[in-house]
């Protein structure tokens, strides 16, 4: 067993993956294993009683959205009854930000990686304010989801059908040169996304009002590209998963209660521990007391070598970690210490176009005592309040220790 070689292989595959956004479709029709009565959620596996506020809210909303319950009370009873199955998005080649709930009828982005022939999925971004991903399920939230499903989804599908797929890797590479890091800052990427979609949507929209609604919606949200980017990162990380003898981390995800990781050479086993509360800046009127423990699959960006790992590319948001642009550079330099390679496509101008650090090596995390950095939004701990801040979080060291022990048991008993 040569761990270094296995890790190199994992990183090479991750970098060689070429995620193309090909269509928007209904979850039930495209996500492997998706079925009625199944709800996908962010993070490692979790049962109803242990779910945190935002995730519970999103589950209730999804049950009402699916027509499985009429009222909050009905939904709550159903969720607790055991008749609804909850499984991680990650078990179904999917990812979702924050609560990350995907139900069978929801429209989802489909990303294909022709290099390795795998696919990945994510839900559509709902914008800001009261949204399902933060656990809101009021009627306006559900109405918006229905509009996304009924109008925006099909039109985006037709728009994308005119292409061979939008190259998300190329989009991200360019966005990193425009001040994005791909997780907390997606302003440039979302504008590039809008720029690519605008002519296509104009071409297929049935009328100007519909076209305007869609472009306006995409353009109003500086996060609109986050979901397809996450699916792209998932497609890349999955390409690196399952390499015998590799200590590269291929999943990092939180469900609002636990933080979990999976490792390329250790199959589908999760290593979990209680999620921590991010350190960060809070919106007016909120404080750390309002914060839910870390939540969401968006850590797939860091797993794929962007997000906090590309912090040096995004000095504009350095205030989330302390204040000076130099700290943004140091954040990325620190991540080189625990990664197995450098990205061949994602480069950072301020580091003389060095490739971003990619492929978290479990061994280096343990040896140096440096856990991966994660840039993240902070959810209110109560369902439906929404985002209360943004900041930095690190996974608990414990899960890397568990994984290292498991790796040694498997490979060096």
């Amino acid at each position, binding site marked *: *067993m*040569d*761990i*270094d070689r296995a890790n190199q292989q994992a990183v090479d595959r991750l970098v060689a993956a*070429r995620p*193309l956004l090909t269509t928007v479709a209904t979850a039930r029709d495209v996500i492997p294993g998706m079925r009625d009565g199944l709800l996908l959620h962010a993070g490692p596996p979790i049962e109803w009683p242990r779910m945190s506020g935002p995730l519970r809210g999103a589950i209730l909303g999804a049950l009402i959205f699916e027509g499985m319950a009429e009222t909050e009370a009905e939904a709550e009873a159903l969720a607790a009854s055991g008749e609804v199955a909850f499984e991680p998005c990650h078990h179904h080649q999917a990812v979702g930000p924050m609560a990350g709930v995907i139900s069978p009828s929801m429209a989802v982005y489909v990303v294909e990686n022709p290099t390795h022939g795998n696919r990945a999925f994510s839900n559509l971004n709902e914008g800001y304010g009261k949204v399902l991903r933060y656990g809101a399920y009021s009627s306006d939230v559900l109405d918006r989801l229905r509009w996304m499903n009924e109008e925006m989804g099909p039109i985006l599908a037709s728009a994308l059908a005119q292409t*061979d797929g939008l*190259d998300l*890797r*190329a*989009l991200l*590479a*360019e966005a990193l*040169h425009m001040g994005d890091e791909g997780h907390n800052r997606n302003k440039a990427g979302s504008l590039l996304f809008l720029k690519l979609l605008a002519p296509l949507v104009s071409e297929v929209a049935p009328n100007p009002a519909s076209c305007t609604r869609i472009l306006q919606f995409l353009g109003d949200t500086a996060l609109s590209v986050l979901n397809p980017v996450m699916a792209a990162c998932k497609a890349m990380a999955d390409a690196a998963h399952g390499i015998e003898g590799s*200590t590269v981390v291929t999943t990092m995800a939180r469900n609002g209660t636990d933080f979990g990781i999976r490792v390329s050479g250790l199959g589908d086993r999760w290593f979990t521990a209680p999620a921590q509360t991010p350190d960060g800046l809070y919106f007016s009127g909120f404080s750390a007391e309002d914060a839910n423990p870390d939540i969401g699959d968006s850590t797939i960006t860091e797993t794929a070598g962007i997000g906090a790992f590309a912090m*040096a590319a995004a000095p504009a948001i350095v205030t989330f970690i302390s204040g000076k642009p*130099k700290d943004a*550079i*140091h954040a990325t*330099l*620190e991540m*080189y*210490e625990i990664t197995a390679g450098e990205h061949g*496509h994602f*480069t950072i*101008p*301020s*580091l*003389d*176009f*060095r490739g971003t650090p990619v492929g978290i090596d479990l*061994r*280096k995390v*343990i*040896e*140096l*005592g*440096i856990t991966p950095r994660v840039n993240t939004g902070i959810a209110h701990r109560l369902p439906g309040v929404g985002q209360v801040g943004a900041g930095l979080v690190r996974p608990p*060291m414990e899960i890397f*220790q568990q994984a*290292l*022990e498991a*790796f*040694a048991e498997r*490979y*060096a008993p």
Partner: protein
Amino acid sequence: MSTLKTEIRPGAYFDSIVLMQLQAALAGLEGIEDAGVVMATASNLAVLEANGLLPEEFSGEAEDLVVAVRGSTEAAAEAALGEVDHLLARRSGEEGDEDYRPRSLEQAARQLPEARWVVISIPGRYAARVSRKALESGRNVFLYSDNVSLEEELELKEAARRKGLLVLGPDCGTAHLGGAGFAFANRVQRGKIGLVAASGTGLQSIACRVHELGEGISQAIGTGGRDLSATVGGITAHQAIDLLGRDPQTQVIVLISKPPSPDVCSSLLAAARGTTKPVVVYFLGQTPPNRQLGDLVFATGLEEAAEIAVRRLAETLDPSTAELVVRSPQQDRRWLRALFSGGTLAQEAALGLRFFLAPLASNLGVEGTIPGSDPARSEGHTILDLGADEYTVGRLHPMIDPDLRLRRLRQEASDPEVAALLLDVVLGDGAHPDPAEHLAPVIAEICQQSEIEVLILVVGTDADPQGIGEQCSRFEEAGAQVFRRLSDAVSYAALRLGRQREASPGPPVALADLASPPTVINIGLESFHDSFQAQGATSLQMDWRPPAGGDDRLLGILDKLNRNGRQRD
């Protein structure tokens, strides 16, 4: 005929500035007439086409990178395409990491790739691990840490020697390399005297005295106190002597140590003599009676060592002993057998020879010699006092009765491994009236029948009744070399039979590693980093922490995994 070659990389985004640089670099390659590197947008493709760089039947998307080169030959165009990745990876080296304190040696080495030294002052239990990594990265190690086991020291030094690198230490407190003091060091001027020291304060004292005398230090290499032990074998001291021997700035070498293991000592002194530079040696508390052997001078104290070294700078080398060094250790005849009638003479000879001849057996109990296993049979180099009790039971002292010594002489001469015999002849009242009468015929017989050299020390005056001149002539006529001073006989034996310089088992340490000012990665005590910077050396301070947070169990797992990986390579 020129050839157009193109490569399309789907979905590879690069900023246009980067691509223009790549294009210019490709166009500058030998045999390349023109190059175009663009993202495949319609307008870019039109430019390529206008310049005759667009292949026929091209199809590509706007996100695709197109690299087109027109070479004078197909091979040139092909070679240029092969350079693309290399050229894209080429950077200015400015990575904005000047004040980042790396946690790992890998990152440190990336930030300061020119560093030739890694200075380690972390707790001993982690020091060997970090040293190993430093050596693996091709850098020399200054190991200040103590509590590194002897086994680890040997392993590290052997690994270093295989790579032509140095490990100074463990427990090395001081050095001057490339004009900068390492760890504890005095500010001394640079000069022509090079030090090799297994003694920290010894090194400092000598350096200070040299400075006071108006001279300076070229390099001062601390080896760590155990380097000259039998286990470590003086690996670092050997490398250091070889290095200073080659260093054009170093004109005189000073070697300081507590008394080394005899085997290490003899090989080290052979190496010292092999440098053909004057070498001053000070083994604490052990100065041999014959203080000079060729260009090797033994000092009696630290200050004196410095003073001799400064004096030797002004002197020319002594060529007189150079031609004596003729024997190679491969020859079958290599042992000295000295059969003394005078006990004190035997002891003095042993004190003079113990640093050069190893293993050296004696019945004298002199430190640095070993007792022979059998009084009746000699092995290796042997010095015997035949006047000792075990030989005089039931017979007269050998000064009066030559019988025992004559028999032993013949016995030694019949040993095919013997190269030289050393005898004393003490004249005067009370001694045998004519020692040559019995000895000369046997000596003649030995000299005729073998290649053995017979060395005779004659102690007496021209007033002695035996007639010293006549005695000497008769020994010389028999084929012996006659000496009137013990130190001359000892020096002769040391030069003829002393260990020869052995070829180093590893590649030489690069002189460039001693270049001024030094460039170091400092792991541990930050005061060392400050000191380097104050001296104008380039130093990068690492933010080192105990691996795996000091959790031995996890560290054990890591080491096991990494070891398994290495073994199966």
